[in-house]
């Protein structure tokens, strides 16, 4: 999460400030006044992260409304969150939905990656684009389309329809890293395994899977976090059961309490953990 922002900042400075200036100035602008760069960096980071920091701050604020000033430190809102049955239920729903959607998305993503990697077939490019469409299209479009489709099929809206919806846009997310890794797989390894007596199933388990394992893990973790905090598609597809982001959103419209801030902080903590895990797995010294 941090890395792309940093590179954005750097290229921003280079492309917009460096070239229109006289060279003698451009060359030494930040070398002579490093504090200028420091201030600029702090401002950008503040813009990005101050709202989140405020939220965390508020979640510990001993005040009944969701705002500043800070009136004292308390764990009260976390205790309330823990005791809140409907919040717990929605968290449980979200975890179930995310887990099932991730399994579906990764499973089909793996199959699709193999189809693209292994075979030449008519319409292959269109196939790839079609698979990626759910993350390119606005969530509203996907949501409405699936709602119309499910109701014309006579499917009752439930967590299952949400799972299907999340799996659809989780698929390209999981597919991406798997396909990238798969295209790096040296074909000779596969041939060597066949040559030494391994049957197709054994070749996959013993040679191909270990090679793409890290990509499968990081792809599925990404799909999981996306599903876990998804709202737009969920709005259209959910029945009576709420997912956690839906519950939070619903509450914001009625009573705004710092309890929400506490929940949000916990969700932030969890998804940061998952994203870091996914980055770490993806960046692990790959075996090959």
């Amino acid at each position, binding site marked *: 999460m941090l890395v792309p922002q940093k590179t954005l900042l750097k290229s921003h400075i280079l492309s917009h400030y460096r070239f229109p200036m006289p060279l003698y100035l451009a060359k030494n602008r930040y070398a002579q006044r490093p504090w200028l760069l420091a201030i600029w960096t702090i401002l950008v980071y503040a813009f990005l992260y101050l709202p989140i920091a405020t939220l965390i701050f508020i979640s510990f604020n001993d005040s009944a409304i969701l705002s500043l000033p800070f009136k004292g430190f308390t764990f009260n809102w976390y205790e309330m969150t823990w005791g809140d049955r409907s919040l717990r239920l929605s968290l449980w729903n979200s975890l179930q939905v995310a887990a099932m959607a991730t399994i579906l998305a990764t499973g089909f993503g793996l199959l699709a990656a193999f189809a693209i990697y292994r075979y030449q077939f008519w319409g292959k490019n269109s196939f790839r684009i079609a698979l990626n469409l759910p993350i390119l299209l606005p969530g509203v479009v996907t949501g409405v389309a699936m709602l119309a489709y499910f109701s014309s099929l006579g499917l009752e809206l439930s967590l299952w329809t949400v799972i299907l919806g999340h799996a659809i846009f989780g698929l390209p997310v999981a597919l991406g890293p798997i396909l990238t890794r798969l295209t790096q797989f040296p074909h*000779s390894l596969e041939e*060597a395994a*066949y*040559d030494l007596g391994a049957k197709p199933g054994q070749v996959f388990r013993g*040679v191909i899977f270990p090679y793409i394992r890290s990509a499968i893990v990081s792809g599925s973790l990404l799909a999981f976090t996306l599903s876990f905090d998804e709202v737009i598609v969920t709005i259209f597809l959910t029945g009576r059961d709420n997912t956690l982001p839906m519950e939070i959103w619903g509450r914001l419209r009625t009573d705004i309490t710092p309890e929400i801030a506490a929940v949000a902080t916990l969700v932030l903590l969890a998804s940061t953990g998952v994203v870091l895990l996914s980055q770490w797995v993806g960046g692990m010294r790959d*075996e090959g």
Partner: protein
Amino acid sequence: MRDGSVVYLDGVSKVYPTAAGEIFAARNVTIDVQPGEFYSLLGSSGSGKTTTLRLIGGFEIPEYGSVWIGGEEVTEQPPYQRDVHTVFQSYALFPHLTVAENIAYPLRIAKTARAEIAGRVEESLRMFQLGGMGDRRPSQLSGGQQQRVALARALISRPKVLLLDEPLSALDAKIREEVRQELRDLQKQTNLTFIYVTHDQEEALALSDRIAVMHNGQVQQIGTPKQIYDRPGSLFVAQFIGKANFLKGTVLETIGETAAVEVSGMKIWAAVTGRSPSIGNAVTLMIRPERVRLGETAKTAKADNQLSGKVASVTYVGQLIELKVETPIGSLTVTQLSSTADFSLEQSLSWNVNDCILLPD
């Protein structure tokens, strides 16, 4: 099925359809490899040598012809059912497995007992001088060591035939010769059949019991290194293997295995290796530079072809001296041992009729 051969390709062709029509990667290839033979497929890139190896390994299925291994037809069998193993050019070691696990792979796939696997891997590590390296990853080994792991892995389940796809090409020139000798020794020790693909004629000549020279997907000639070098069957083979002088001429007469050929007004006797040519045919004669005798030895020798010439240039190449000699039939390249070279300007030249090969055009 030809009796006794361990690998037999019967008129095998591999065809790829392209926009411009069909391309034959291998065309009507027939070879039979005897048990215990070191057999080389020699050719430049695109000659079909690797395709032929892949047809034996089972990575390609031929459009025409049949493939036999150990007296059994395997034309359409997948690689994992064939009792042949391959040493790949890139070695193709499994990066996620240790050296010992790599070597054990074929045994593990064959569900060999754990204790036996451990024993055989240990023995194999020792035999290939990989002692103490069993726990390392392939990426931690040198090129030569990786190659030994690839060999150990391919040999541990004792296949009938070992296929080697340019196994030395990724090594430094320095250790290549050393490994070449090791390969030859290994083959003699194990008495296994090796089928060896290479583009390096020196390698093929040094290692092989027999060589199949390939060009444009076709087998040009099959023979021992000596036959291939001394008695090339075609102009292509003569040009591909070693250095040679080539003379154009027309056939005057043929007597048994020899023919008289007119070259620039002179009558030269040559050996006929293939079909007897008709009188008046245009042919090419080939003489290896080291087979031409010079000076007094040329005059006293009971040689079939004698002529005189003038030395135009002398090049010292260490062990050998290379001379360009102007003769009535053209400029000839002659090599002599530098220790016994004769440096006179006017030279008599001669050679045996058997060293002058007639190649049909």
